[in-house]
């Protein structure tokens, strides 16, 4: 029975390493920042989670196993957020989409979004800066 769990864990680890490899291939082959992020977030997240799950199965319910499960939770919660931040930052820094891209709704709406943001900042209550100055 322990052997069976061990084999399943090994299968998870092998599959995870394969998906990590595909993700890295995507980083090299795909044309621009945004497409590369797609490969980095999806393949590498699943690959890493799969490796951690395999580790958890092999180690069992001891210190390392619980830590591996917690790491899965953290990776799943943080990887998309960081990808989202990088993509938004890249777009705002003026990096164009690849020339083969078919549409860019975000740059069409950027001016309106910026105006909205500006209005929100203007309406925000006075900052403590004024207090320190007086």
């Amino acid at each position, binding site marked *: 029975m322990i052997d069976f769990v061990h084999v399943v864990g090994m299968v998870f680890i092998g599959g995870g390493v394969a*998906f990590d490899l*595909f993700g890295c*291939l*995507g980083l090299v*082959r*795909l*044309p*621009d920042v*945004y*497409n590369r*992020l*797609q*490969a980095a*977030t*999806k*393949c590498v*997240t*699943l690959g890493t989670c799969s490796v951690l799950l395999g580790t958890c199965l092999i180690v069992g319910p*001891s*210190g390392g196993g*619980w*830590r591996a*499960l*917690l790491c899965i939770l953290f990776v*799943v*919660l943080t*990887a*998309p*957020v960081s*990808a*989202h931040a990088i*993509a*938004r930052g890249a*777009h705002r820094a003026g990096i164009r*989409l*690849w020339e*083969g*891209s*078919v*549409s*860019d*709704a*975000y*740059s069409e*709406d950027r001016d309106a*979004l910026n105006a*909205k943001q500006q209005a929100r900042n203007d309406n925000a209550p006075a900052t403590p800066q004024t207090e320190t100055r007086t």
Partner: protein
Amino acid sequence: MSKLILFVFAWLVWCLLTWPPSLPVLLAGAGVAALVAYLTGDLFVKRPHLLRNPVRYWYFCFIFLPVFVWQCLRANVDVAWRVLNPRLPIRPGIVRVHTELKSDVGLTFLANAITLTPGTMTVDIDRGAGVLYIHCIYVKETEIEAASREISGRFEYILREIFE
């Protein structure tokens, strides 16, 4: 109430990180968890009454998670296939997607779920208008209604039951 929930959660994470448990470690964890809960309790759990509803847990565990894991696997096979294909069949672009969700947690989960599923990645959210800007690796629909059905429709009806 919300501080108590965060305290229990933080202590649980501490216990799992420092397994196996012993008395001094557990006491230190309780101290740290209490500090964290005291300082940031109001930031994380804004509507504690929602946590009392068991139907929401049921939806999260048995409907959202299986759908999410299945879509995630499909996403990975799809992206891996595109990366390995010698002709590199991509047709990227950013499209608008409409969403009905309003709460912070609901929007966060929707955006994260979209980022982790087939060829789509959230770039920005316009909360006032309820519009998500999604980068797709293979754009099928550029028109907003069709794109919404295609991309956010898979999760939105489930997340509405859980977080709204």
